């Protein structure tokens, strides 16, 4: 396998996540699309680490571990916000959440 196949797989995954984030109306599914895009970025880190000139430096692995940690924090706060918004608007449809005044 060459680096190209991993990069194309990552681009496909990113595109699927982007399509979901753009077309779906449910806030939770938009968050899922963003998670898919983050995973595509992680795959790029690992692929470049493996095919890079010195993989014994562990840079790609450690960056990916920190990236997974940030993604976990983002998912927790995002889902908490969606639950708070649902409590206020009684819906998670993004088309109906269109005012900022509480």
């Amino acid at each position, binding site marked *: 396998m060459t*680096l190209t196949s991993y*990069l194309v797989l990552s681009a496909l995954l990113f595109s699927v996540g982007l399509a979901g984030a753009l*077309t*779906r109306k*449910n806030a939770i599914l938009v968050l899922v699309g963003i998670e898919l895009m983050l995973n595509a970025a992680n795959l790029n880190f690992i692929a470049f680490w493996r095919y890079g000139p010195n993989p014994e430096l562990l840079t790609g692995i450690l960056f990916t571990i920190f990236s997974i940690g940030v993604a976990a*924090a983002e998912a927790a706060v995002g889902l908490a916000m969606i639950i708070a918004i649902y409590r206020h608007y009684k819906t998670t449809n993004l088309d109906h959440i269109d005012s900022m005044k509480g």
Partner: protein
Amino acid sequence: MTLPFLILAALTIAGAVAAMSFRNLVHCVLALTLAFAGLAGIYLLLGAQFVGLAQVLVYIGAIAILTVFAILLTRGTEPGDFPDTPASWRLSSVIVVAVFGVIVWAIRGSSLSHRALTPKPQVSVKQIGEALMGQYVLALEVIGLLLTAALIGAVIIAMYDRQAK
């Protein structure tokens, strides 16, 4: 080497497409775990065992379960989620195809793409732990602080109930 990659790649993409296209939100998250599992397999294939296991623990074990809880708490299985206007579909697909085209064009034009595979590096958990406690200790502390803040923030955001006051 090629066949496992193709199987895992097909699994990942199929899971991702299913996660973004099913109507029932719980089915969407189940398909999402399939995509995460396929990615974990690809990490193992690339020799990053620790990241593959972290992917299983964090994404499948925590984020997918958290998403299912959020769906059930918000009764997200209600219908009418799909966009009914073709205009939004058309604009979105144009954007997605353009983004994918630009990325693939950049990959094909890069000289990095045909780099030969170096021998598989032996990465032990001990090495990762030493790197985390040595060179990357500041980043580790910062991410610990970030996770603590996110945990407290998530609890406070979800706990506050205007009606109950």
